[in-house]
Structures are given as C-alpha cells and as structure tokens.
C-alpha cells in the first residue's frame, strides 16, 4: 500500500477543489507532511493545495517511494459530493501501487441506512516531472492582508479589465492594484499602516502586469480564505498564499502566475 488516508468533514476541501476546477487532471502528491494537489496551465499559472497530514484522522505514506500521479479533478469533486450537502460522511483514500486506480470509500455514518459508496478513479502516471521550487523567485517584497478586503477590492475593480498591475513600493501609496481594459482604468491602493495589513516587507519597488482572467481563478478560492500573502520578485512572478482556517484546522493554497511582459 503506497498511500492511505482517512478523513471526516472534508467540506472545506471539497469547496476549495470545486472553486479551482478550471482545468481537469490534477496532480496528486501524497507526501510525509501532507497531501499536495497541483493544477497547472500552460506553464503560466500553477495552483497548489496543501492539506496537512494533521487534518486527516489517519494518514500513511510509503516513504521509500515518491508517489505522484494524475487524476481527473472533475470526477474527484463529483465523488466527494456523492452525498450532497447532507450528513457528515467519512472518506477513505487508498492507492495500492503505481498504475493502480485511486480507491475512494465514502461512508455516511449519520444516516440510519448506513450507505457505503465505493469508487475507483483511474490514475495517470507521470514520466517527466520537474519539481521546481518557485518560492525563491518571489522573495523581494511581501504583503499579508485579510482575504475579505482583497476579495472585495479585486471583485469590484473593473470587471471587464484584461490586465491587472500589482505594484509594491516602499513609499506612498505602498500596495497598488490597477486594472486596465477596454472600458477604462481602475485603481486602488492600500496603505501599509492599514488595519487590514498584517505584514508589509518591501525594500524596492516591484511592478508587474498579469492577466486579470488568471487572477479571477484564484478569486473564488480566496472567498474561503482568512489571510492572503502576496509576494513578488524581480522576475515578475507573483505568488499568492492563502490560509484557510476551518475549526482550528489549517489548509493552504499557493498560487503562482507569471507576468505578461518580461
């Protein structure tokens, strides 16, 4: 048995997965520390979900092997929602060997009928996988803000805009978001002294333009987050780290986007 895990109350996981489902085929990586699910599009955006092993009621990984495979995200989300909103199902994931399907057993303990659903999702093997650490690319400037205000600002910024410019500066007006599109231009700034900002580290000014539509992918997930960390670097790579708290359990989402002009 390469990997097995059990979890009850996975509502938050389901919500997050559903929110990021802009593409099928998600990379499934069970690791010692927890489960990492990665979605990637054409090498310009990457979104990863980290589910720490502490969230699971039982979590076992074969540490000798590097386990990595792809599954259909759409099917996985469908299976997770097999019981709909009702009950408090318990889920068990198992992955026996390389090339084997991912087995999911759902038991609905709350309902008297005691229904068990047994599913198998076919997996895809990965041959050439490069695990590149992107974190170092964006360690120049960093801001941590409350997710609620960032969601509000991003969703109210010009919705028909094509481009979003993110500027972090050590001087006034500090953190600036500018959306430009056919309908005009919208701009908003947050001061580093704002109550909404918890951390502001900035030495030099960085400014880069991103595709607004890509940022919108992460906007849905951000609605479930508590805090968001935005960091940028010289190369223009943008990193958003989202922290989600659900009943004293934490979950993380990491998002990378490349800038439009290098």
């Amino acid at each position, binding site marked *: 048995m390469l990997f097995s895990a059990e979890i009850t109350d996975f509502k938050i996981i389901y919500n997050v997965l559903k929110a990021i489902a802009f593409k099928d085929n998600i990379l499934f990586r069970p690791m010692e520390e927890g489960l990492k699910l990665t979605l990637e599009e054409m090498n310009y955006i990457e979104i990863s979900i980290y589910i720490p092993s502490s969230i699971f009621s039982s979590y076992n990984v074969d540490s000798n092997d590097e386990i990595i495979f792809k599954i259909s995200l759409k099917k996985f989300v469908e299976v997770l929602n097999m019981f709909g909103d009702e009950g408090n199902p318990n889920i068990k994931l198992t992955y026996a060997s390389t090339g084997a399907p991912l087995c999911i057993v759902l038991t609905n303990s709350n309902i008297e009928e005691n229904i068990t659903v047994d599913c198998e999702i076919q997996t895809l093997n990965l041959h050439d996988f490069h695990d590149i650490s992107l974190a170092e690319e964006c360690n120049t400037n960093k801001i941590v803000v409350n997710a609620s*205000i960032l969601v*509000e*600002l991003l*969703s*109210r*910024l*010009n*919705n*028909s805009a094509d481009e979003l410019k993110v500027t972090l500066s050590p001087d006034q007006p500090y953190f600036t978001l500018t959306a430009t599109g*056919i*309908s*005009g*231009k*919208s*701009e*908003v*700034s*947050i*001061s580093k002294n*704002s*109550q*909404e900002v918890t951390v502001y580290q900035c030495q030099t000014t960085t400014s880069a333009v991103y595709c607004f539509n890509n940022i919108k992918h992460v906007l849905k997930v951000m609605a479930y987050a508590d805090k968001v960390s935005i960091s940028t670097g010289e190369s223009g790579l943008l990193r958003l780290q989202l922290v989600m708290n659900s009943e004293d359990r934490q979950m993380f989402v990491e998002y990378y986007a490349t800038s439009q002009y290098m």
Partner: protein
Amino acid sequence: MNCIIPGQNLKVFAKALYTLGKIGDNLFVEVSKKQLKLITMNSRKTVCSQCNLLDTFFSNYEINENDLDSTGTMSCKIQMKFLLPLFKGTHLEKKFDYVKIEFTKHSDYIVFRMKYKCDEILMTHNLRLMDTETLTIGISPDTGCNTIGTTSAFCNQLLGMFSNLDNEILFEISTNKAVVRNYFVGEPVKSKTVRSQVNLSGTEFTMYSINEETVINFSLKPFRTAVNFAESFTLNLTLNFERGDKPLSIIIKNPTFELYFFIATSNPQSDNQKANSTNSIPTKVTQTNNTDISEEDRQVLLNENWEEGFNSESFDRIPHKITNSNSTSKNNQFVDIVEEALPRKRSLLDDENANVMEQDGESEEFNGFSLSQNSKTKRVKLVLGRCFEDSFSSQTLGNVLAPNSDSE
C-alpha cells in the same frame, strides 16, 4: 462637476442604476444646476426610463457653470455593462463612506471615486465615455388625463396574480373600476396559458381619477421593474396616461429623487391591428459637442434637413414613430392620416359611386394599414346611404299604408 453621494444613499443609487440597466444598454447622464439625470432607452424605443437625482440627494453638488452648454446641461453616455459592476453586491451603504462622481466637459472619462469605510482605501474608476450624445424624451410624465396612484405592495400583489410568462398586461379603465387582464377579448386562445382577470374597484387605489375611459395594453417587464424598485424603498407609484396607444408614465417620487418610466402602449379595442404594434416613445438622440468639426461644417450640418428623407418615403408600413423631438402631438401620426384621408374619400364617393372599390384599395395602401371595423361600417352607410333612408316619404305620397319593413 463634483458630486458626492453619501453612503446611505448608495443603496438607492445602485438600485436605480440596476433598474435602468434592466431597460437599456446605454446610460445617458445629464447634469444641470439643479439635478443629475440618468436616462436610458431600450433598443426598440418602446420603453424609456429616467432617474432624476435632485441636488439634495447628494451631500455635495457642485457644477462648474463654464462646463454647461447653452441649454444649461452637460451630458455624457456610458455603457451600462461597464458601470453596473462597480455597484454590485449588497450592503453598499455599510462598505462605503461615499462615492464621488467627477466629470468635466470634453473629457473622455467619467471618474467614480469610492471611499471605503475601513481605513483610508480609495478606489478610483475611470470609465471611458461613448460618443457625446444626449437623449431627449419628448413627453412629460404628468400630461395624461387619467391618474392612478397605488402603493408598491398593492402592485406587487396584483403582479403576483399573473404568471411570470405573461408578457403584456391590459387595463380596462372605467370611471370607478379597473379590470386587469393578461389577454384581450377576441384574441385567439393560446394553449398552455392561463387567462387571468382581476377586477379592482377604484376605491382600492390611493388615487383614482379617470377623465377618459379607455383600454390600455402594455409590456409587463418595465412595469415589474418599476414595482420592484418602488417596493424596495416602499414608495408609491403613480400611473399617468391618456388612453391606449399613447405612452403611459409610471412615476415614483421621493423628496430627493424621482424615477420615471415611459412605456409605449396599445389599445386592442380601438382598431383591428395586432396589439404589439405599439407606437414608440418620442425621443431624440443628439450629438452634443462636435468639437472636431469646424464651424463651417457645423453650419452645413445644421442646415441639412435630415428628416426629409424619412418622411417622403412611407417605407414603414406600420405607423411607427421615428425620433421626433419637438412635438408630442406628432406622436400619433397615423391617426392624423386617417382624419385627413376620410373627408377626401367622402367627397369623391358622393360624385362617383362606381369608383368606390378602387378608391378603397388605394387608400388602404396609402395608409399602410387596414381601416378599423368602425370606420368601415360608417363608410358602408355613407356609400349605400339610400338603403338606410326611410323607404317612404309622407311628404310626396300621402298617408303611410304600412310601416317600414327594413331594419338597420
């Protein structure tokens, strides 16, 4: 121009924008010293909506007099789809302190500055403007002789009795009662529809002043929109109209703002036309500041009679009103044509009865629509007048031996 909408009025502003957004795709903003007008019109020109925000609606209302043109206004045109997302969401009054609108003459942008309540966050939206045009509505809201006032709750209850699938509503107005139907008598029965009729006494309305009994048929969608707006602020609605086939005005008033709807109507009883051939609302779209055009060219443009080409060709078979600004009386073009045409026929018919049929065909083609049942009977009486005269005249031939056998 520098206007500030306080947070507590944002709810009204956003709701009004969304209400107008349900009518048209473009928003015409007209600024004058006393008020800010938001006007929109649907593409078929059958519904217009106007929102007047009085200067008391704003916490600060400053207009630079140099910006105003000769008519004392300054206008711009914005696309609805760009403007509406700025005011989406609920509880705007809790999120924002104020919204400031800035706009100057000859500017390509209108600026909305939204000040958040939390911290010092200020969001600036520069929205690109479309061609500088003004929309003038050629009717005023309270000229009709019939006025009905109701509460929004009452209207909502009334609308609840009709299905969401109904497109039109018909009011049969008498001096002391109103019958509301989703069909008109004589219309072929459509399958899978429910015919509803609501009888209302005049006393059920807050105001019911009828000077001319009529039947008025109009689109339900703008009516629903109006009721929906009025209900969210528990305001009263006033319906003002003259008769079916003349525009109906719905008026919603508050001390600081006014919302008007102008809806084209038809009267299915007045003629045998299809009910949907309603006259459009008389409106005019004018280019305002053509700054790029030289004075000479402008003179030429002004002297050109644009209307001529339209009027000489009666290509439009259904009497249809093309933007006509200056007079509301012209609105009912086809009625005028009927009135002009009939006497002419009469004089011809007296002389040569043989040409009746030919003349008939000609006149019908000329008018572009078939004459009403009523006028046909009139003409039959006129042509075959002798048949309806008494068959016996006592003056020429002594005593009556038997009474008239013919009845009309």
